[in-house]
């Protein structure tokens, strides 16, 4: 059967709310409005206003409240309408949620999920299109997840909610409405994916493509086209950006000896930069070609559709990059 990413997230939230009464959801428009992107549809009706809490548009405040409640033993799922708005609350995410367990010498953990759409959507311009994967992934104390398909969305969301640490959960608005096949196993109410493990989406022997979120789909499409030309790509879906699954990456490079990272975020100090640096340090002798990065262009996101497209990796860009080293 098939399921959209939206329904995958919605059902995961629903089941985890049912499973553990310490879990609650808060954020702007999550309740009566059913979610700005309808991820929380039906949950208010099912679990009531104490467990599905509409907040005012005060990110710093409600994030701090969510974190405080997690210190005190609740398990909040804190929605940002988009991750851009979490910049108003980033101090609470970093200085309060991520660091307290360490600073308190293990006394106070913070079981919380921060979630919402990350990165570019369509036509929403510079202030609404930023990818925060690299920033959050730099911070010890956080776990950072980015689902691609419905399996990821369900399995990672459930893992994130059950995890005792703060998890930054980066969704993608454009994927919400996309349907993916799901097995009965994925629909099991205890279907939990391991945090910190990447998934090989397609095996291949010539070039490794590594990405996360929406770009996984682009890599798969690029791989399909390249296969027709005899270039056999391995496609890795990171799923977890922190911890980064170095082992899976290294195993793949030992096979292909060539690797390209693909992300929608800006290049400088991006996720691709990290992958490149890890390959340098841990697989230098395996590399038959430089590790390449395909990234969002280094510009604030423009509004016009053609410029927006030029500012983001397209399938053709991936193909070009592969061909440049294949």
């Amino acid at each position, binding site marked *: 059967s098939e399921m959209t990413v939206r329904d995958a997230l919605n059902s995961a939230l629903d089941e985890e709310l049912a499973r553990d009464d310490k879990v609650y959801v808060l954020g*702007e*428009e999550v309740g*009566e*409005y059913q979610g*700005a992107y309808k991820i929380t549809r039906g949950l208010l009706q099912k679990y009531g206003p104490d467990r599905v809490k*509409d907040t*005012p*548009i*005060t990110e*710093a*405040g409600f994030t701090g409240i969510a974190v405080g409640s997690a210190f005190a033993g609740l398990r909040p799922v804190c929605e940002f309408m988009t991750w*851009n*708005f979490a910049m*108003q609350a980033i101090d609470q995410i970093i200085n309060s949620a991520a660091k307290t367990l360490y600073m308190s010498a293990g006394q106070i953990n913070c079981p919380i999920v921060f979630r919402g759409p990350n990165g570019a*959507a*369509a*036509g*929403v*311009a*510079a*202030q*609404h299109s930023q990818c925060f994967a690299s920033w959050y992934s730099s911070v010890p104390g956080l776990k950072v997840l980015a689902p691609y398909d419905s399996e990821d969305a369900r399995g990672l969301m459930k893992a994130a909610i059950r995890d005792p640490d703060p998890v930054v959960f980066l969704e993608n608005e454009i994927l919400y409405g996309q349907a993916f096949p799901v097995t009965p196993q994925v629909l099991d109410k205890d279907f939990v994916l391991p945090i910190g493990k990447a998934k090989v989406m397609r095996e291949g022997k010539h070039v490794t493509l590594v990405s996360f979120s929406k770009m996984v789909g682009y890599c798969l499409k690029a791989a399909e086209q390249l296969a027709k030309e005899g270039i056999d790509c391995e496609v890795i879906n990171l799923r977890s950006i922190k911890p980064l699954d170095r082992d899976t990456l290294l195993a793949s490079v030992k096979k292909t000896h060539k690797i390209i990272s693909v992300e929608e975020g800006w*290049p*400088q100090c991006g996720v691709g930069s990290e992958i490149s640096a890890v390959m340098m340090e841990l697989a230098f002798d395996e590399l038959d070609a*430089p590790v*390449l*990065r*395909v*990234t*969002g*262009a*280094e*510009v*604030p996101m*423009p*509004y*016009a*559709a*053609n*410029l927006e497209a*030029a*500012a*983001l*990796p*397209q399938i053709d*860009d991936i193909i*070009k*990059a592969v061909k*440049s080293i294949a």
Partner: protein
Amino acid sequence: ASPSIKVEVMPYKVHRIEAPSNVVETNVEELTNFYKLMYKMRRMEIAADMMYKAKFIRGFCHLYDGQEAVLTGIEAAITLKDSIITSYRDHCQHVSRGGSIVSLMAELMGKQEGATKGLGGSMHIYNRKNNFYGGNGIVGAQIPLGAGIALAHKYKGEPHVCITMYGDGAANQGQKYEALNMAGLWNLPAIFVCENNHYGMGTAEWRAAKSPNFYTRGDYIPGIKVDGMDVLAVKNAVAFAKAYALANGPIVMEMDTYRYHGHSMSDPGSTYRTRDEINAMRTERDPIERVKRLLLNNGVDPADLKKIDKEVKKEVDDAVEQAKQGQIPPLHWLWRNMYAEPLGAGMRGVLPAEYHVPAFDPTYKS
């Protein structure tokens, strides 16, 4: 000059300040201008709605219809040397600050003839020359920005104020309270205008604010509540506030208003409020109808208004057509105006080894 007309507007509610008179002077000429401007705003937004539905516009698009009296009244009380800053709901400031409807529509359609050349889109429209500072997509962020613009006016010794517009949802943002405090400490000529349209997206004011009396939410800063559906009430109150702000420092204004459309194009606007509520607003408090009635009661020929209507409609329709004929921006505009001094440094494209030196070229001649 047409003879003076005295109109009694709804009495102001005030907080820590004495209310100005609620008898407002106007005349047919002024009222006619208000009518024209507000009707233009209305038609523009209706056109934007249609163009959005016809897929000429994408992304977020927030319409101002219903709220026209607020901006129109503000502009009537200040000059283009006073500054304005607002949220993403910024189409009408573009025209009230001297921009054309064509450049607005072209911007919404992502054309190079647009107010921001297709780079900004609906939420990011500015007019630096006429002191309009946008067009800000982050709820609340414009509030300290506006206080900073007021600071610049004062620093430079200019007798101007900055009007900072924000919604009832934004009114709860912490940075508003920080900005109010500093504006108070430094006596900034800052007018904080809360456009209370009673909903922040789908959240009614009272669900988001423990105290939805926004004119009192400056606490130790004076405030005034105004019928924001009555352009005369707004004009009069803003003139009062401007004088106050220049002499004393910040003041909060709550404009009781209403948005007819949903929050943005993806919101039907009817799940969290009743059709009855919307209809009552339209029939009982519409700001354009109110001015129309005043004009008719003061002897204006209905045919004259019809003529205006027709002209405005045509102006908007023509603008839409012209905008449709606009060009999409050339690809190299991706690499313009990231820095005022780009230093010759290459910024990276999508692919490795693809670097571009962004030009500073606000005229987009190159």
